[in-house]
């Protein structure tokens, strides 16, 4: 009966006014990182999720730091982030549960094609040391996102102050797409996830300069707030589990593997579970 109502309401919405209020019963709030949206991946996956489950997803697109905070505070039903240390810390603290890695790609250092600092093919940490030494423009997200946290870890590795960086660092406080645009306009270097970069590379005049190495691995996980910390109806646990199961399902994993292959022949994200096998 409830499902019938849900279907009827959805059908009315689709047939009638189009962009109206979603019915509260069939919508979950998902905090996710800018890279999953800016790369276009969620545009691809979410309609399939809605089709399979009838659940609407309200995306809150923020940096991983903010997404983790929203999850820890129970402001959203599910989160998709790429900041493994921060995720595990909150899982250990009992604030988040059910962490499931489901895909990965890598970060890449990008910059102007003529590469004024000469970092092409250097390992990431050595490249950062040289950027600082030459004091060249570098566009930093500076937003406590997963990408920003990785940048800080790489700076720490070569003995640089992760907060201060060097004088020519531009701090956008913004998402990956906008930061890449700033880097393109200012002929600056930037650290980006490869997914967002592939999506933007035709629009910004930047090239991938660093080879993928282990220090640039980028792991995406789905997590949810610990339901024991909230009153029974505070979180949509059912919807959260449905999304996690969906992301790890063979069909979605295959979809992730196929996503974005056209521009370069390389996929933007690699699923962690080979399509066809049960995760």
């Amino acid at each position, binding site marked *: 009966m409830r499902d019938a109502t849900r279907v009827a309401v959805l059908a009315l919405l689709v047939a009638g006014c189009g962009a109206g209020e979603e019915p509260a019963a069939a919508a979950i709030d998902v905090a996710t990182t800018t890279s999953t949206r800016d790369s276009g991946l969620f545009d691809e996956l979410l309609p399939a999720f809605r089709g399979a489950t009838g659940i609407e997803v309200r995306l809150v697109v923020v940096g991983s730091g903010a997404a983790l905070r929203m999850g820890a505070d129970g402001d959203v039903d599910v989160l998709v982030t790429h900041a493994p240390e921060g995720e595990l810390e909150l899982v250990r603290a009992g604030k988040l549960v059910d962490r499931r890695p489901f895909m990965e790609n890598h970060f890449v250092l990008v910059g102007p094609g003529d590469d004024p600092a000469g970092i092409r093919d250097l390992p990431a940490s050595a490249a950062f040391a040289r950027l600082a030494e030459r004091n060249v423009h570098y566009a930093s997200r500076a*937003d406590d996102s997963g990408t920003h946290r990785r940048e800080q870890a790489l700076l720490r590795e070569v003995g640089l102050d992760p907060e201060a960086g060097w004088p020519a660092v531009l701090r956008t406080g913004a998402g990956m797409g906008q930061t890449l645009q700033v880097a393109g306009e200012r002929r600056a270097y930037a650290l980006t996830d490869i997914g967002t970069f592939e999506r933007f590379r035709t629009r910004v*005049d930047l090239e991938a300069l660093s080879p993928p190495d282990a220090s640039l691995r980028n792991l995406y996980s789905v997590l949810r707030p610990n339901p024991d910390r909230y009153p029974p109806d505070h979180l949509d646990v059912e919807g959260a589990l449905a999304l996690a199961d969906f992301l790890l399902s063979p069909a979605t994993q295959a979809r992730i593997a196929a996503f974005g292959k056209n521009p370069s022949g390389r996929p933007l994200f690699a699923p962690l579970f080979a399509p066809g096998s049960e995760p």
Partner: protein
Amino acid sequence: MSPLVWVGVAEVALRTLAVSASALLLALALGLPLGFLLGRHRFPGRGLLAAVANAGMGLPPVVVGLVVYLVLRRGGPLGSLELLLTPPGMVIAQVLIALPLVVGITLAAVGALPPDWHLQARALGLRGPRALWVLAREIRLGLLAAVIVALGGIISEVGAVQMVGGNLEGQTRMLTTGILMYTQMGRFEDALALAAVLMGMTFVLAGTLTAIQQARRA
């Protein structure tokens, strides 16, 4: 909050003041004469210009931001000026937002005068700049309303300065874009600090202008 944080807030507040004041002065310098002209004189195309000014009062700032962004970006028509992601670029966007407000309200204020006002002025022996000065005093309520509305439009604006300025720390971060950013990052204390400064600034400026506007009115 630590003193260091307040230094950062002050830096952002001063930039906001400087950029907004520059934009306001430019918008007034261009908009007041244009408003007078449209309100006082009849010439071909006047109706169209007045309609454009009035329509422009509802111009969405994000649209202004988008257009200015596309014009100023590297490879855009004015890309060689390298004004994108700089304070002067933000001033350009804010002037475009404020200009229709100044022109439209000035136009309305001038239009509210009796149609034979200039005959009366002439009868009183007022000519040229003196006549204009008396006219301005006569309609100062409306003119100051134009200033207040333009200031409000500029200082509270977030979309266009975000797009054109890029919210770069130490370079183009404004109070509004900072509030937006800190809220998205979940740093609500910092967002509130900037919001408090913005509210205080707006209130003091609007209050001062109101005092001028209402001075010596019985």
